[in-house]
């Protein structure tokens, strides 16, 4: 059995092994192996290619951009996604604009340990995918499975553009797979995580699993819920979403991030504009509450969507 976290470690090991242009840079990623141990042992296996960085997110990202110009393929680990706010400018204004301005690609991968966990609190729990998707010039990946964590991270390193790799901390240990994948779904293609015909849940990352649990529960009541795992939110696979809605006529978009302008807003906007006639009922969305992510489990468990609240929304959608 291999965990989602181990898959991320293995993908980085393979990237280092296969491509001399790859190096890893971030706080405590060296001998310590990273705050989450995602780079465990790599500094020893690949001497001089896994470097501890100072607490300087702006310079960390900026230096990765420079190295990319020089032909390297840096993998940057932010200790937590939340800290990327201090590297924000280099990401959205330097990395994201380089190719468009100069025709020189900027192949950097920025790993963001994302999402909420019990006791994480307001500054170790954020889901920042929508922020980065809003800016032109970035690819935003949100793997929900062990297989995708592995293959998409390898893809991210191979892609000639800056990739924001949102890996979910909650899945790090919870998620296990038999083995690493040998082939992968191409980037930009969504995956039908569960087939159904009564309604479509479009979601990504950790919420895929809450949605699957919910689908399982509703199945006992005879409902067949289709669950779509977007895999990457930019590009966002509108076609797969529309095809599903064409089958079910009902759409619920679920995201762990904040509501205003989040992934769920983008999905609903696309389906409303491009698949209006496919809808048999008003589409719905479910997000985290519009407050910072609370520390205590009692609050956190209610702040984010769960199988239970998703089921409640679905019942409403199905009865519409």
């Amino acid at each position: 059995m291999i965990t989602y976290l181990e898959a991320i470690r293995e993908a980085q090991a393979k990237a280092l092994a296969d491509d001399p242009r790859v190096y890893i840079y971030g706080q405590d990623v060296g001998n310590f192996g990273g705050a989450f141990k995602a780079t465990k042992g790599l500094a020893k296996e690949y001497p001089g290619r896994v470097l501890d960085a100072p607490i300087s997110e702006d310079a960390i990202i900026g230096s990765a951009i420079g190295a990319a110009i020089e032909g390297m393929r840096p993998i940057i680990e932010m200790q937590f996604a939340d800290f990327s706010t201090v590297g924000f400018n280099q990401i959205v204004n330097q990395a994201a604009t380089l190719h468009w301005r100069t025709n020189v690609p900027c192949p950097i991968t920025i790993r963001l340990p994302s999402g909420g966990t019990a006791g994480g609190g307001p500054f170790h729990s954020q889901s920042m995918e929508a922020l980065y998707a809003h800016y032109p010039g970035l690819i935003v990946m949100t793997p929900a499975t062990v297989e995708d964590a592995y293959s998409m991270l390898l893809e991210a390193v191979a892609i000639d553009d800056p990739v924001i790799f949102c890996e979910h901390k909650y899945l790090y240990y919870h998620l296990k797979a038999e083995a690493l994948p040998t082939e992968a779904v191409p980037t930009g293609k969504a995956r039908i995580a569960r087939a159904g015909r009564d309604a479509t849940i479009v979601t990504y990352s950790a919420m895929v699993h809450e949605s699957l649990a919910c689908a399982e529960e509703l199945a006992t009541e005879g409902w067949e819920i289709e669950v779509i795992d977007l895999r990457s939110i930019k590009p966002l696979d509108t076609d797969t979403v529309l095809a599903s809605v064409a089958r079910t006529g009902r759409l619920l978009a679920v995201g762990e991030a904040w509501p205003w302008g989040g992934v769920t807003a983008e999905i609903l906007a696309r389906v409303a504009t491009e698949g209006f006639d496919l809808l048999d009922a008003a589409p719905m969305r479910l997000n985290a509450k519009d407050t910072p992510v609370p520390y205590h489990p009692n609050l956190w468990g209610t702040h984010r969507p769960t199988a239970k609240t998703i089921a409640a929304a679905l019942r409403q959608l199905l009865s519409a």
Partner: protein
Amino acid sequence: MVQATAAPSVSAEASDTKARFLAGYRWMQLARVSEEKIASLYRGGKITGGVFLSKGQEALSAATGMALRKGDVFAPLIRDQAGRLAFGETLLDGVRTYMGSRLGPMRGRDGNVHRGRPLEGLLPMISHLGAMLPVVAGILLGRRFRGIEGTVGATSLGDGATSTGAFHEGLNLAAVEKLPLVLVVANNQYAYSTPTSRQFVCQDLADKAVGYGVAAHNVDGTDLGACLEVLYRAVEAARTGGGPQLVVASLLRLVGHGEHDDASYVDPKLRDTPLGRDCLLVAEQRILAEGWANSATLRAWQEDAQRQIEEAVTTTMREPLPDPNTEDWCALASRHLSEGSLPA
């Protein structure tokens, strides 16, 4: 806040070295004992999330809290249990925040070291290192606007946090405005697992002061007497118009970065240097050597500290946890402007 009672009569005799030293010792002791209790609660699964302790850094922190007075501002960081207590934070505030009590200052919304009472001058840190520095500067700027004089603002940072842009911009802004700000940098030789050699290359972090045009002070962070002397001097200098003061203390963190961490990355040789001394034991030895108290008294104090933390925990255990149903899910102070319509 009902202040924890480690030293009822400090301020009265603040001038007296002995009394001050003993008071400092008791804050250190209370911090050590209370953090050990927090750690045991964590190991017992009573605390969710991180637990960050200050073992080895109590002398510096206590001195910082003591050098400040009521009306001053303090933005502690993750290794400031002693300074928080000395500044006036109650043990209850700490325990309640760690355990998420609805009656705590953070009401379960934020936890562990992310606690404070801004209106009482104690700022609740956000996680982003360096970010509290400009906020302290802003409070002092605000006081200047309001004509409030003679108060000081202090904040703590680690060696690693000196690499942040926030540290640079915040200290520079404070210097330009010549604010009464004391920046206490605890150089414990590591930022999580990262040694200072990967963090900066100046000989001494105090060397940074000249580039900001601020005063610098070095101190042995394992020596309570030295910490008290230097912090009182630095705070006094800030209070009397000396502008920002950079205090750099050398010491070692004698625990993991957090309770999840065994700190195996710390160079054993370092532990054997004077940096590796346990400031609490060092203080204790001085007290006995000076004959300021005998070991029976020290034990009595220790038991008193034990009693206080146990009492705080017992109280907190009986308190209600946050309730998502009665929780007010509104981020704005202007309730009428909050978007009820947002589909959460």
